């Protein structure tokens, strides 16, 4: 997990070097988006469902304090130990102390983006604790010492030959084997042994229910269940925004989640945990890590409504053509780009610019987060706070100068057309960033304004004749 900071645009250039692979990445994610559409179109009340999801989450944001207290009380009564962590460090320390308390040094973990955000694996590794990720995609990237590139499809940046090579090295599968069935079977055997031998299992939380003091974990593989039902200790980690008021609200969210994510009507397992099984210990860690700050930003607090379906990733033309790793943050894509600047403005100042502001993300969001509007608002905050490169700032300033003076604009246009026509090398060179991925367009004979004025006169004359 490298921590070298390369900005989104630079990383995207690297990702785009393998054109065939980028095309595959683009088409595959678009295919997932199409599956989403197919599933959604079968639900006539889909838009009302989104509105319901949005309203429930709006209520949650406004009643967060009381809902969390209610949840804590009920969960404690259910026999779950509730912990609170203000930041990643505290979150990691709590988990380490639970593991140490059990006298073990190994743990199995199902998907939890929060633990990625907190860099839990690295922290535990340093303490001498081995963590095995049990989601197939996460296991693949973990073996390769990479981070997930997508929150639902962690290994979507890899080809089957990459996975084959990784498994050959780590699991002893046949060299050159690329059959997904064969490779998945190898991972099944390897992870089954892990499930059977780990005493501590960690999961994320999709929804925590205040009314009942329980939580829901959704997986297709069954890895969360396999881990916790065979372990002595179950640790569940949640950002506090995962809380929902009532069990009946699960009806809304479970209808929205998988359809938005992969076009499935529901995930294979939607497991509801309320009490530890006999002899088991169950812990839940409620984490802040910047979320209270985001809650206090009126323009950006809506990002906390997110249910992590990744529909905004799959639909985003920039994500599809730049890959998740270009976003250098645990949660990539459009939603990640509005969450990350809250955590660290300077480190993530590039991300709100990794968008065309086309708005497709907001259109598919199952809880109606105004993602593209927040991207636009972040840009303004970032410029004001001085987190935008001088080059970009100067460019935008001179653009503003040109656009605000009609005569200057006309002159600049004329000059541009003249140069492009007579001295193309002035624009067709490496210094022009616009030219780097594109051919420059043919030079028009006249500007639109000139065309309009001339044509306007013609029309007027014709009209006069007609009179």
């Amino acid at each position, binding site marked *: 997990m490298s921590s070298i900071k390369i900005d989104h645009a630079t990383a995207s250039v690297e990702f785009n070097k393998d054109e065939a692979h980028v095309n595959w990445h683009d088409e595959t994610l678009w295919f997932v988006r199409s599956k989403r559409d197919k599933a959604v179109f079968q639900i006539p009340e889909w838009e009302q469902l989104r509105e319901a999801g949005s309203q429930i989450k709006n209520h949650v944001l406004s009643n967060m304090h009381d809902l969390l207290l209610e949840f804590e009380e009920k969960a404690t009564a259910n026999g779950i130990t509730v912990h609170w962590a203000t930041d990643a460090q505290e979150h990691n320390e709590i988990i380490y102390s639970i593991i140490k308390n059990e006298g073990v040094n190994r743990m199995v973990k199902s998907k939890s983006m929060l633990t990625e955000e907190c860099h839990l694996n690295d922290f535990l590794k340093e303490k001498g604790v081995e963590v095995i990720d049990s989601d197939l995609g996460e296991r693949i990237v973990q073996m390769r010492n990479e981070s997930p590139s997508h929150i639902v499809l962690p290994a979507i940046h890899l080809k089957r030959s990459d996975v084959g090579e990784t498994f050959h090295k780590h699991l002893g599968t046949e060299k050159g084997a690329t059959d997904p069935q064969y490779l998945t079977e190898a991972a099944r055997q390897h992870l089954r042994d892990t499930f059977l031998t780990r005493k501590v299992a960690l999961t994320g939380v999709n929804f925590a229910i205040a009314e009942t003091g*329980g939580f829901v974990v959704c997986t297709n593989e069954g890895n969360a269940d396999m881990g916790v039902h065979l372990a002595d200790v179950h640790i569940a980690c949640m950002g506090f925004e995962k809380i929902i008021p009532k069990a009946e609200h699960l009806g809304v969210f479970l209808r929205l989640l998988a359809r938005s994510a992969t076009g499935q009507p529901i995930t294979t397992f939607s497991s509801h945990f309320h009490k530890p099984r006999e002899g088991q210990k169950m812990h839940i860690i409620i984490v802040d890590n910047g979320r209270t700050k985001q*809650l206090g930003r009126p323009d950006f607090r809506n990002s906390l409504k997110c249910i992590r379906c990744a529909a905004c990733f799959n639909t985003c033309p920039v994500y599809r053509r730049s890959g998740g790793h270009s976003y250098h943050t645990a949660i990539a894509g459009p939603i990640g780009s509005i969450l990350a600047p809250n955590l660290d403005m300077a480190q993530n100042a590039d991300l709100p610019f990794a968008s065309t502001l086309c708005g497709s993300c907001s259109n598919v969001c199952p809880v109606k987060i105004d993602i593209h509007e927040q991207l636009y608002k972040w840009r303004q905050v970032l410029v004001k706070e001085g987190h935008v490169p001088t080059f970009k700032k100067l460019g935008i300033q001179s653009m503003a100068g040109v656009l605000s003076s009609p005569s200057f604009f006309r002159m600049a246009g004329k000059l541009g057309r003249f140069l492009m026509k007579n001295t193309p090398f002035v624009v067709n060179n490496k210094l022009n960033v616009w030219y780097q991925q594109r051919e420059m367009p043919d030079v028009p004979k006249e500007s639109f304004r000139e065309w309009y004025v001339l044509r306007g006169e013609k029309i007027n004359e014709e009209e006069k004749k007609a009179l």
Partner: protein
Amino acid sequence: MSAREQILFNIKNNQPDYQELNANFKFESVYENLYEKFSEILNFVGGKALEVSSYQEIKDDVREHYQGVTNIATTIEELSALADFSLNISDPHELEMLNLAIIKGDFAVAENAAIWVSEKQLPHRALPMITQYLAIVIHKSDIVTNMHSAYERVKIDETGFGTFISGPSKTADIEQSLVIGAHGARGLVVYVLP
């Protein structure tokens, strides 16, 4: 201030003005035939529904389709003749040998082929995941339309654990190629009694 106090203090200060939640978020789904919808969706998610008229028919089908298979367990008394593996164990790790588990489902949901099973039906939470193959028995009259009806019917904290199971376990993490049988059951048959 403890972490708890600090987080709650910051939340109280930063959360927006209270927004009432009084709307009714229950939508009705209309299907001509609940069983057919359920069966169609189950097929779509990689499982198979079989209409049967009696437990005897289930027995016959299991004997035919799992010929020679050992380590079969069931929670259903009427099917106990099929079982050669006792669930009367204390350590769920022993379930690792299990090839087929036949369990009862509480009820099913037509819109997504999900079947609710809880500790009322499960002597061990790991049972429906750890078994190589899973069969669930439901009654036709226990199929509801959608998830709203499902949550009207189920009290989720009645037991310590319950789960909606929709199809066999699966993954598409390698190049988006669907593979049935990730970590949980490799196959799911749902027997539907009248």
